[in-house]
């Protein structure tokens, strides 16, 4: 509801609307562009640090980031509508977002494999100490990292591809 008679209430109403929370409640806002572009990038960055840190907390942190990513996804532009039915635009957004996510993950996997190949070779020659996964824990973390990368890259791409918001989100105007 928007107050139009009282200027103070109207400003407060606008300020609350600006946060996007009421729109999320109405399930009308399909994307909060800025948070859904910055937060996934931050999550990927922290997951990458946790991956190469090789500390005891690395796996816990990566699992925590995986949980946060799931929560973020549930509120992002690729979320499932309340009735579970996506229309053709939403299905296309889903396809395009995950295509971008898969492409980024594939690229990261290819580059990672090359780095590990040269890292192993250089380590044998004693030239460098590039991080190479060695134990089961490292591989588990790497798998989780790739999952985090795919989901968050898909979220970022989906947010990027969302058109700017309509003036009237309810769609009931003329």
């Amino acid at each position, binding site marked *: 509801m928007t107050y139009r008679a009282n200027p103070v209430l109207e400003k407060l109403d606008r300020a609350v609307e600006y946060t996007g929370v009421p729109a999320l409640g109405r399930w009308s806002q399909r994307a909060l562009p800025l948070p859904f572009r910055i937060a996934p990038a931050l999550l990927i960055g922290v997951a990458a640090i946790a991956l190469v840190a090789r500390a005891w907390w690395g796996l816990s942190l990566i699992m925590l980031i995986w949980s946060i990513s799931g929560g973020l996804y549930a509120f992002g532009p690729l979320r499932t509508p309340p009735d579970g039915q996506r*229309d053709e*635009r939403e299905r296309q957004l889903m396809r395009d977002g995950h295509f971008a996510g898969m492409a980024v993950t594939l690229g990261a996997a290819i580059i990672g494999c090359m780095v590990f190949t040269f890292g192993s070779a250089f380590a044998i020659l004693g030239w460098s100490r590039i991080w190479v996964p060695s134990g089961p824990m490292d591989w588990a973390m790497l798998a989780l990292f790739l999952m985090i990368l795919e989901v968050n890259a898909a979220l970022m791409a989906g947010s990027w591809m969302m*058109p*700017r918001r*309509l003036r009237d989100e*309810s*769609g*009931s105007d*003329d």
Partner: protein
Amino acid sequence: VLTQRIDYLLNMAKRIHNRIALFRAEAGLSRKALAEAVGVNPQTIGFLERGDYMPSLELAMQIAARFGVPIEVLFSFRPFPAIAEVLRQAGEAA
């Protein structure tokens, strides 16, 4: 401009202009009513009207059928002339 560029590269499609908003206003339909009639989200109708989303052939045909007009009356590769311009030309012709 960058977003448009990326969108073009992703879709590789020509921009399609439409007159959905005009027909919808003339029919006295809300976005929600039209969306329910053709089975999409009201936001999708809004994005379609604004030209931010290119519909599938199926959706385009459904919308045209809802208004009872051929598809080319509703969608075009060329921008539609303004109503004022059409009326002026019609007035001059008469």
